């Protein structure tokens, strides 16, 4: 995946997010302290926030180009976004959640059977999302995002709310998503362990700027300062 961010500017409460990046990893970790602009970056890419100016291109698709007045609507961006709170629809069953954005595209071969099998949630389809355990909710949220056939997945600290035991059980599912569906991901995390397990590229944000962009293992080896 090629994700290009050029001259991206978004004023936030304490600082301005200013990015100029080209990401090529299969899974890129977005690393940084709380309030460094990580979630805002994901929201910009998904279209949930609008940059003051800048350019965003995911693969072949230009999502935003303020210079040419291009701003693709959120619903047409094909960006899967799993926020920290998951945002499962509480009034719908697991199956209805999964089908909400299900849209087979010619360029992606994703079926409900395949996704539910890989994420081991086939037996939960009739359940209400509010009755699921933390790990089940997590997998349902991944599956729902995958079934919309996204070109890029944005995961915002997907394991932050889980205990370490459960985290260790979810990571293999993320590896499966990466390997089975070949969808590039931007993965916000505070955890070195997750970066090591999943990511092949890392960017480090500090007060809205990218202060380092490296291969994951390099970051891991030089992060005593974090």
């Amino acid at each position: 995946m090629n994700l290009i961010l050029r001259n991206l500017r978004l004023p936030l409460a304490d600082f301005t997010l200013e990015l100029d990046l080209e990401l090529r990893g299969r899974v890129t970790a977005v690393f940084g302290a709380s309030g460094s602009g990580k979630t805002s970056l994901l929201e910009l890419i998904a279209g949930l926030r609008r940059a003051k100016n800048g350019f965003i291109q995911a693969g072949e698709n230009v999502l935003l180009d303020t210079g040419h007045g291009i701003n693709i609507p959120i619903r047409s961006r094909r960006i899967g976004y799993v926020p920290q709170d998951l945002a499962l629809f509480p009034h719908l069953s697991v199956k209805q959640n999964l089908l909400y954005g299900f849209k087979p595209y010619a360029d992606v071969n994703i079926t409900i059977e395949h996704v539910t099998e890989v994420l081991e949630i086939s037996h939960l389809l009739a359940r209400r999302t509010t009755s699921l355990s933390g790990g089940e909710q997590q997998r349902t949220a991944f599956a729902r995002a995958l079934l919309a056939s996204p070109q890029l997945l944005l995961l915002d600290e997907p394991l932050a709310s889980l205990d370490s035991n459960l985290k260790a059980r979810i990571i293999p599912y993320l590896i499966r998503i990466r390997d089975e569906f070949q969808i590039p991901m931007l993965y916000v995390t505070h955890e070195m362990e997750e970066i090591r397990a999943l990511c092949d590229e890392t960017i480090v944000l500090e007060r809205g700027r990218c202060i380092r962009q490296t291969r994951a293992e390099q970051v891991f080896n030089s992060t005593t300062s974090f």
Partner: protein
Amino acid sequence: MTSEEWQIVGFTAWVSVLSTLVITPFGLALAWVLARRDWPGKSIVETFVSLPLVMPPVATGLILLEIFGRRGTVGGFLHDKLDWDIIFTWRAVLLALSVMSLPLLVRSARIAFENVNPRLEQIARTLGAGNWRVFFTITVPLAARGIIAGMLLAFARALGEFGATIMIAGNIPGKTSTISLAIFQNVQLGNDTSAFRLLGVSVFLAFVAVWGSEWLLRKTHHRP
């Protein structure tokens, strides 16, 4: 109950249901805009919508009379162009009930919309849903209890409306007479038995509507 009383009860229930249905689409649109959008002059619109709740109903009726009377701006236009009369017809009853009950629907629906997590609407958009789909499949179902509670409250308010109705619809037997107007008139004329029968009916209808609305609100409150 006499046939005349049944006619009054039937007309009141019918026109109250109709006014609730008439204000619902408009009230929901207004509630959504107030809950989800900011624009200059929003607080003025908010105040205007709530005015009928706090103003004397008779005063609201007088304003409506000025606007919808034959010499009023809207009333004159409707009379000249469409040969429609509003004042002293059943349409005036509908108008009075709608204006007086709208604030209750808007307030209740607005709170219900504000309680819907905007994150869910955003995620629905990332899943490919357009504005209408988000509204009807996420926002309205999640706000449904508050909306229905608001509709029931509006209906109950419509059932008991007196001041604005008597100003613009009068109390014409068989035409614009509602339960409230008939109770007042019966007491004036010393027909206490008839007044008490209608009182019983109105207590029953109001009780069912308010109780239903409270029940729905309680359920909304307890939802995870």
